[in-house]
């Protein structure tokens, strides 16, 4: 494990690494390679300096317990300089680094980002924000022995606050780099933060700077200065010191007016108000507001009289800011002619505007003034960016005749009319004409002022004149429009779609205004669907009927599988001849098989999996007549050729986040399939993942969200970069009808849920595990068959133990010290589940009966998630045990997410209710013991549901033992004796069958 850190010294950023040999070049190079950035690492670019760290003796105290290297506790704690290799970073590299950090640590890279690096990344964000807002000015400064052209960032209000907060949170290692090993650096956090911000904003602007199109001649100091502002090197190349000094002074007084405004304790405001009466007198006033009392707004008009009451009130805060006001007005006058005009009066207070002038002010001057940093107050009904009220077209559609047997398809043409509406008011053609004639952008309608766009009105009028009479579109297109999809260019924006009859009902149901009828579960379905599952199943059925793609996004454990199976069952019973294709991750293929066998045993199923799976025409023949075909994401691209030759009734994607990236092979393969309907199942909340939504929706309902590039500009950029709520809301409306998500915590579901949701996970074996498993069988089986009595019993138990160890992880069996990743199917599945939980910030308990496995798991999880993981076993002293529990249970939830427990130690009166998930990595086969362990996370009546996973490898003794116990439980109604004694009483034949290695165990 290595930790990357960063610091700033004398204007240069230095990257360094804590690792095995702290401070060495090797560690740094390896760490950079592991996070695979594009930062080139030539060894000769490294610089040696000192970093002062708290140390014992000459060993530094590491920044994280994950970094092995315990310092000798006996030596005294002291700040020591450490000779270290640093990599200086230029502007471009800083940017790459910041982007990489923001994307988060890479599980499995064994590199963590030190606090200093995370802090640096935040500072870069602030620098980018300042650059985006254009809050900086060019400057000329004297640095040691030469002049430099530098960009200076300007802080105001929010950015000032955030800088102060960040500055006091600076990790001290950031300022601990020094050239001296005699004296520790002591530059304050505040000073260094400010320097950092200046450096970073300067770097950003410089990176982005335009390149001069023609060779740049330094004919004057100004040429030299401009060149220094846009070149990577900030030095001003000009030999006459006098000129530089003069320019420097000029710049100081040049920027003084901005300073004057920013530093004043008052804020200058320009406010426009609509006419109070029916006149055209819009009032623009100048106001002043103390920054520390936002409730006060005093008209500048009052302040010209120094004896006035208003003046007295303000003077309590600070001397009257006449100078600031006049400075502000002087600048504003340059941007806005009416303001310049108003200055000709003796005591400027503002001015009046008529309707046209007011519109010009609102549309042109106000944004310009705002961009220049002035505070401009506008009427609440004025929305920035032009006209507030859009004139749009409404569609009034008439449902076509219903054909017999519900043979409606979304391709059916629906006829409709256009109507014009201004906001939510419908306009007749006559009213539209009148509005167009006015040509004035501000209109008073029904006593309210609204702004309209005269051009838009003209365009709308032209559109209506051209499109009189009835039109038609396919039902599917109309539905998309009704939900808010963008029309292709040239057409006006559609405000809403109103329809009667079945079409209207369909739109209502899609938009949630009307509820979908809840159906009864199919007769052949074995087991009882819970009420919310019936609703889900009915919803899937409804969308299927209309040919819309559906995404069932219920929380983990709510039973997406059974809801999907119910629909397949229903269709099969109704005579559906074509099979449904289910695509899922390899690790759950077996789980689906088991669930289908349990809930829909009548359905003929085909599993496409394994090295000797059927291909091409053999495949096509094999799937004929089947109801459900199951395959994995990894196989689909490989076998896509013949998959797309089959006509599927439907395609269902389980764990649909596997296609979130539209460029991957599986994403592309999935789109080549032909099916009547498409569904996706996923447990991750989609509303946070705007970028991933497109890929999913494009699969489910092509065309709904437009092309990838139009999605990016209409939705992704506005929402992710600019936080545009309108775009976010529009996207929600568009996709909501096709996504159904319930949470375990929903009030109307929670009472339907059992307190513990148990799920059996049927894992697979890796090749290594398969080989080992077979080897154990080969070694032990014969011996068992030939032995008798107690010796035999001993050999049976020994065999079971070995096989269980293999199923857990080869390293537990072979006891090697090699890599842990990629060698165990169970571990793979565990990491998948924990990754999903990680993103939802939930906590899990992991039980194992083997202490060695516990240690292995702790190692594997710590390496993968780069976070500490607790492991509680019998050898832990009571005090430490209590500390671990307290940390895990703490309110702020800062402790580890994962808690591994040995099954024996985990039983005794511990409370670990902060966990919402319990995973039994291996089974004890004693339900009482297992339940007791599970109950560590669960408390009766708490109203929280706990998700329990029980891992077993399919096709091995683990699955079979489980089956036998379940069978016997049902028949005898009682639990088999504790432990595995009864297995030694099995006949030889039964024993051989028990430990046999089945094909289902094979991973892909």
């Amino acid at each position, binding site marked *: 494990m290595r930790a990357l850190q960063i610091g700033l010294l004398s204007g240069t950023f230095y990257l360094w690494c804590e690792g095995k040999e702290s401070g060495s070049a090797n560690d740094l190079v390896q760490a950079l390679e592991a996070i695979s950035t594009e930062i080139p690492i030539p060894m000769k670019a490294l610089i040696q300096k000192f970093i002062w760290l708290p140390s014992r003796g000459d060993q530094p105290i590491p920044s994280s317990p994950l970094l092995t290297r315990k310092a000798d506790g006996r030596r005294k704690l002291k700040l020591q300089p450490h000779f270290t290799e640093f990599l200086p970073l230029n502007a471009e590299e800083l940017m790459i680094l910041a982007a990489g950090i923001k994307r988060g640590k890479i599980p499995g890279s064994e590199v963590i980002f030190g606090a200093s690096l995370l802090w640096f990344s935040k500072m870069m964000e602030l620098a*980018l924000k300042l*650059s*985006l807002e254009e809050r900086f000015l060019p400057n000329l400064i004297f640095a040691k022995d030469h002049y430099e052209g530098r960009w200076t960032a300007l802080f105001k209000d929010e950015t000032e606050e955030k800088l102060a907060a960040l500055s006091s949170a600076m990790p001290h290692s950031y300022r601990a780099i020094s050239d001296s090993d005699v004296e520790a650096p002591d*530059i304050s956090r505040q000073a260094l933060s400010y320097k950092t911000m200046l450096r970073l904003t300067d770097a950003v602007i410089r990176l982005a700077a335009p390149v001069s199109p023609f060779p740049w001649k330094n004919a004057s100091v*100004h040429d030299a200065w401009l060149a220094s502002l846009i070149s990577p090197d900030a030095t001003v190349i000009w030999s006459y010191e006098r000129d530089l000094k003069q320019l420097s002074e*000029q710049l100081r007084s040049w920027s003084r007016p901005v300073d004057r405004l920013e530093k004043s304790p008052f804020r200058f405001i320009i406010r426009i108000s609509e006419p109070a009466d029916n006149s055209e007198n819009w009032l623009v006033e100048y106001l002043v507001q103390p920054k520390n009392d936002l409730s006060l707004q005093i008209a500048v008009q009052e302040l010209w009289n120094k004896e006035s009451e208003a003046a007295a009130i303000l003077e309590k805060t600070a001397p009257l800011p006449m100078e600031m006001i006049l400075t502000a007005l002087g600048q504003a006058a340059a941007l806005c002619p009416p303001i310049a005009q108003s200055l000709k009066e003796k005591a400027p207070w503002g001015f009046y505007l008529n309707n046209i002038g007011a519109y010009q002010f609102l549309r042109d001057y106000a944004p310009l003034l705002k961009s220049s*940093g002035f505070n401009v107050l506008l009427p609440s009904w004025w929305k920035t960016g032009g006209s507030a009220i859009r004139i749009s077209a409404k569609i009034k559609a008439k449902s076509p005749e219903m054909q017999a047997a519900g043979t409606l398809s979304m391709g059916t043409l629906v006829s409709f009319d256009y109507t014009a509406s201004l906001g939510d008011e419908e306009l007749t053609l006559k009213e539209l004409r009148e509005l167009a004639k006015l040509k004035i952008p501000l209109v008073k309608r029904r006593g309210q002022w609204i702004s309209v766009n005269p051009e838009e009105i003209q365009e709308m009028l032209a559109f209506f004149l051209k499109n009189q009479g009835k039109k038609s579109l396919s039902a599917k297109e109309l539905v998309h429009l009704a939900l808010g999809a963008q029309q292709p260019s040239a057409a006006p924006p559609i405000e809403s779609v109103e329809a009667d009859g079945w079409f209207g009902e369909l739109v209502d149901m899609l938009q949630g205004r009307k509820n979908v009828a809840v159906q009864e579960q199919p007769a052949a379905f074995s087991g009882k669907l819970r009420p919310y599952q019936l609703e889900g199943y009915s919803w899937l059925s409804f969308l299927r009927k209309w040919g819309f793609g559906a995404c069932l996004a219920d929380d983990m454990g709510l039973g997406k599988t059974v809801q999907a199976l119910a629909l397949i069952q229903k269709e099969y019973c109704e005579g559906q001849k074509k099979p449904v294709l289910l695509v899922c991750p390899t690790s759950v293929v077996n789980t689906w098989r088991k669930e289908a066998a349990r809930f829909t045993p009548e359905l003929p199923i085909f599993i496409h999996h394994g090295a000797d799976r059927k291909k091409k025409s053999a495949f096509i023949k094999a799937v004929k007549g089947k109801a459900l075909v199951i395959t994995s994401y990894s196989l689909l691209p490989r076998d896509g050729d013949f998959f797309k030759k089959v006509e599927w009734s439907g395609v269902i994607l389980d764990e649909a986040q596997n296609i979130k990236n539209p460029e991957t092979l599986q994403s592309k393969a999935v789109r080549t399939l032909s099916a009547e309907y498409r569904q996706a199942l996923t447990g991750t909340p989609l509303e946070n993942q705007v970028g991933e939504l497109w890929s999913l929706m494009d699969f489910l309902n092509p065309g709904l969200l437009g092309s990838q590039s139009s999605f990016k500009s209409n939705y992704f950029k506005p929402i992710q970069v600019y936080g545009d709520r309108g775009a976010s809301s529009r996207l929600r409306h568009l996709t909501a009808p096709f996504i159904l998500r319930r949470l375990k915590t929903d009030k109307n579901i929670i009472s339907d849920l059992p307190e513990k949701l148990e799920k059996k996970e049927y894992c697979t074996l890796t090749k290594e595990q398969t080989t080992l498993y077979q080897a154990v069988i080969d070694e032990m089986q014969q011996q068992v068959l030939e032995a008798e009595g107690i010796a035999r019993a001993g050999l049976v138990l020994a065999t079971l133990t070995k096989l269980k160890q293999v199923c857990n992880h080869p390293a537990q069996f072979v006891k090697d010290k090699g890599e842990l990743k990629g060698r165990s199917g169970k571990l793979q599945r565990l990491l998948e589940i924990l990754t999903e939980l990680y993103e939802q910030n939930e906590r899990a308990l992991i039980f194992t009966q083997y202490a060695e496995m516990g240690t292995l798991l702790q190692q594997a999880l710590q390496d993968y998630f780069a976070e500490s993981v607790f492991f509680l076993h019998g050898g832990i002293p009571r005090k430490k045990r209590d500390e671990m529990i307290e940390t895990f249970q703490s309110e702020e939830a800062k402790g580890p997410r994962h808690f591994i427990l040995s099954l024996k130690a985990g039983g005794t009166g511990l409370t670990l209710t902060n966990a919402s998930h319990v995973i039994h990595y291996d089974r004890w086969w004693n339900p009482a013991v297992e339940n007791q362990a599970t109950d560590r996370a669960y408390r009766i009546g708490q109203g929280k549901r706990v998700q329990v996973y029980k891992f077993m490898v399919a096709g091995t003794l683990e699955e079979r033992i489980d089956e036998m116990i379940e069978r016997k439980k049902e028949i005898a109604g009682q639990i088999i004796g504790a432990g595995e004694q009864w297995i030694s009483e099995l006949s030889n034949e039964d024993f051989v069958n028990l430990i046999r290695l089945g094909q289902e165990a094979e991973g892909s």
Partner: protein
Amino acid sequence: MAYNNGFFKKIPPRKVQGGIRAQNKWGSFATRWWGMRWLQTLESFNIGERLKRGMTYARKGQVISLDIQPGKVTARVQGTRRQPYRLYINLKPYSDKEWNKISAAMLEKPEFVAKLMNNEMPDEIESVFRDLHLPLFPQRSGDLHTECSCPDWSNPCKHIAAVYYLMAEAFDNDPFLLFTLRGKSQADFIRMLTAGGAAPQSRQSRPEPEPEPLPEEPSLFWGDCSDFDIQFSETSPVQFHAALPKRLGALPFWRSSHSFVETMEACYKNASVYAADQLDLMSGD
């Protein structure tokens, strides 16, 4: 001795390193109205011929130092002799009482005050001075008293003339030097205008904070990431680029062939677009 009968060889003045070079190599010496007015005023005193002699000196950089103070200009000019000549130009400064009248009159025209606050000299500002019979510029040649240690008896000698030219340039660079010459610096005048209100704040460099030693305690030293998990609010895209420098106006006496405003616009727009893209990338595409 300006004998032009060939007995005395015309000796060129000694070369000066790092003198104040007149910047203008082409056209007239001043481009702003106040610099031009200064020269026009001088030319109206009928000293045109002698004035031109100073032009060469000014262009060559023979003026070593130039200092403008209330009522007095001091300069040192390198001539033919080894020792540079010292010269003084005196103009009557106005008294505090007279300046009070000027500032009171100025306050009647907030338009002018607003411009002055933004380092601009309003075009019609002379009228305020004239109306009070306190002209800004000298009216007669007698208003200017000059002294130069050079042996030349003409008035103005070429050394004074050189300084006159450089003054025109200096006024172009900073019109408030005119005020200074008449007795009040820009800072003082603005203070008067605001009737003793807050002094115009100069760009304060942030006060240097106290040194802060590194903590020894490891957990304090290494810090806690949650401390700086700060969210930034949404930023709306900028509609008008380079608003800040545009608002501040042109830099005085710009000499580059590249337009300041255009260069700024390009830099600001590029920075804004680049930052938007980077934030985009960082938010996870």
